[in-house]
């Protein structure tokens, strides 16, 4: 598929791709789905999601202990190694303790980029937290506007929101088509598409996705009904597309996910009428949450249960980053809630490098056999 190849190219060489965009606009890096990308895009800048380094971690070891997660270490490694020279700025929404300190370390060591902290509330379920959230987004808008040096109007925000809504609807459409007939596209290709759409110019990404959806819709009906077992991936980001290959080889399909490189990115439309910033804030409040944010005591578990029900999945594979506390704290209760409804789960703790391929395959195969 042509669209997937386009996404693959930017995923393979994000630094090179961003350099080609740099001539036209400022590039702002981020590493969290609570980044108000819509505001960055409205300002005429380009938001680029960072996923960590593909190489070994060396330079970051001078700043971060070995017990921090591979995302935090990997993003810093890329910055120190000069792989992110295309960045003009970096935005840090408040996520977890590690990202909080990454922001400080970045501010003190990477002087070439504009630096902004969007210190979001940790709870999303009270009126005062929601007001504060709106205040923080407003402040980000003002500071971004001052740095860019051009007015950031409500009209441009609304246009940006419309673009993002379209982008998210299209990705969700691909997920729906795939949930109905998994054979139309590999799990690896889905992972590439989402990651690519977070790096690529958003208008170009929308165009590629329109083509992809069109091609997939034209092809549905031609694929045989899949007999594969159905599983869901849960966690933060998936940097190892091999996992999809292993699952497929073992006779199963990832039919949906609860990932930042997945549904946490595309779920939740933003209202296109009314105050645009308030609408962006409402999306964060209503959308399925990341475990670093408090909504209530069981909403993540309920989200997963609904997901499994809606997509008739028999199992959940948790892809937790090693050293990621928010996800690690949630795992026991999520596993229990799923178990009570007869849904099996498997926990994979993922570091910078995957465990030996054979070992991982054996664990995944054994899990798939039981569901």
């Amino acid at each position, binding site marked *: 598929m042509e669209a997937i190849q386009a996404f693959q190219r930017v995923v393979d060489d994000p630094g090179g791709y961003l350099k080609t965009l740099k001539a036209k606009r400022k590039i702002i890096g981020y590493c969290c789905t609570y980044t108000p990308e819509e505001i960055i895009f409205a300002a005429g800048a380009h938001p680029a999601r960072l996923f960590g380094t593909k190489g070994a971690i060396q330079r970051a070891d001078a700043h971060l202990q070995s017990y921090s997660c591979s995302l935090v270490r990997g993003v810093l490694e890329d910055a120190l190694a000069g792989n992110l020279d295309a960045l003009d700025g970096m935005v840090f929404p408040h996520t*977890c303790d*590690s990202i909080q300190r990454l922001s400080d370390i970045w501010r003190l060591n990477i002087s070439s980029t504009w630096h902004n902290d969007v210190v979001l509330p940790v*709870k999303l379920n009270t009126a005062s937290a929601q007001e504060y959230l709106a205040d923080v987004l407003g*402040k980000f808008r003002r500071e971004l506007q001052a740095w860019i040096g051009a007015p950031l109007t409500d009209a441009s925000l609304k246009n940006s929101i419309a673009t993002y809504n379209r982008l998210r609807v299209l990705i969700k459409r691909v997920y729906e088509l795939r949930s109905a007939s998994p054979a139309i596209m590999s799990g690896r290709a889905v992972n590439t598409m989402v990651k690519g759409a977070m790096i690529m110019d958003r208008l170009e990404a929308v165009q590629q996705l329109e083509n992809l959806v069109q091609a997939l819709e034209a092809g549905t009906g031609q694929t045989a009904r899949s007999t594969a077992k159905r599983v869901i991936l849960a966690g933060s980001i998936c940097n190892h597309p091999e996992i999809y290959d292993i699952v497929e080889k073992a006779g199963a399909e990832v039919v949906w996910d609860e990932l930042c490189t997945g549904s946490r990115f595309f779920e939740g439309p933003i209202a296109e009428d009314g105050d645009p910033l308030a609408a962006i804030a409402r999306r964060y409040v209503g959308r399925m949450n990341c475990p670093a944010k408090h909504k209530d005591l*069981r909403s993540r578990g309920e989200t997963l249960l609904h997901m499994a029900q809606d997509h008739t999945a028999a199992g959940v594979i948790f892809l937790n980053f090693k050293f990621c506390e928010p996800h690690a*704290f949630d795992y026991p*209760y999520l596993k229990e809630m799923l178990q009570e409804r007869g849904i099996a789960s498997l926990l994979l703790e993922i570091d910078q490098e995957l465990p030996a391929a054979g070992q991982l395959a054996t664990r995944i195969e054994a899990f798939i056999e039981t569901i």
Partner: protein
Amino acid sequence: MAEDKPRDPEKDKLKIKSAKKMRDIMTAYYIDAKTARDNGKKVAWITSGGPVEALHVMDVIPVYPENHSAMIGATKMGGQLCELAENMGYCADICSYARSDIACATINGGPIGGLPAPDFLVCCNNICGTVMKWYEVQARYFNVPLFIFDTPICHTDFPEETRRYVEKQTVEYITFLEQVCGKKFDFDRMMEVGKLSLQGQRLWQDILDTTMSKPSPMSAFDAFFHMAMIVTLRGTQTAVDYYQELLAEMRERAANKIGVVPHEKYRLLWDNLAIWHKMKWLSEKFAAHDACLVADTYTSAWCSSMKYLDEGDFLKSMVAGYTRIYLNIGVDQMADIIKKMITKYDVDGIVMHSNRSCKPYSLGQYDIRKRIQDEFGLPILMIEADMVDERSFSESQIETRIDAFMEVIKEKKG
């Protein structure tokens, strides 16, 4: 220790006499907490940096899982409880305070047979984001209300919107307490408790400052022991009375040149939480090198925001007071505070505990180390360990590193 053993008067002189009273107070406090229900009182679990004063106003007994986990560590029961938590599905990389507490709650284990079950939970994230996840687990386990007091990190400044948000939460917190306790909040009582809290903090800082004397009358290891009061009984007359007594004793020791390390030659600063399961070993190890850890960034954190507090209007001033504490600020501001402490306590070197359990405290230490080395050229030792989980302690390796570090200090100072 055998009673009939002849006492060594020289060693007796070094002992801090108030320590016995401290043990008695803490024992009485835990008995009160464990019998709260019999006495018609409510129990709240609260984080160590949480706004406890309002609980005293409501006659609620505050209980600190963090203090309890430190006790678990000190009694070397951490490894076992952490392992139990791991068997429950909690990954071995998460905070050992949380792991020990989560496991302990299910078996009423640990040195005091577990904490009394909470009627409600108060979680303030000024120390870390970990506590929010930890308290969510306990709110599910005990099925009790959870109040999250959200204090956004002040990376470089204290913005107006943050102040507004925390101020609103102060009002929400009081409403929450009125609901769970079924009675009105007494604002006059709040004035008294606020005064006692601030008085306790001032006394605690004064006690820590007696270590400016040479030799130092106490060490960071003593501070780790005596801090329990500023954490658990902050805002009470008991803490004020006790600290007055301890301060008098320390001042007297300083005046009489009684050092806690008999031949103090080298003065060091400790960074990060204590390694609770190795306190005695570490204290003796450094003392054998004639080195005294005269100050630390941890115990002083409980008076790190005194300058923002106003006893005339505690509730209003605690907005900044609880948000702008040490840890809830940028790494560069933390480095600046350490720099001031280096001069104030006249230290020759720094021991940094790189604590696997505490990311907001530990991530950034390498940058702090570099900034301090660039400016002061001080020797800095980094020990990787864990505050509670003794399984993460490599004794022979750490011993070798301490010896090598002390050699450098000795060569430098002569």
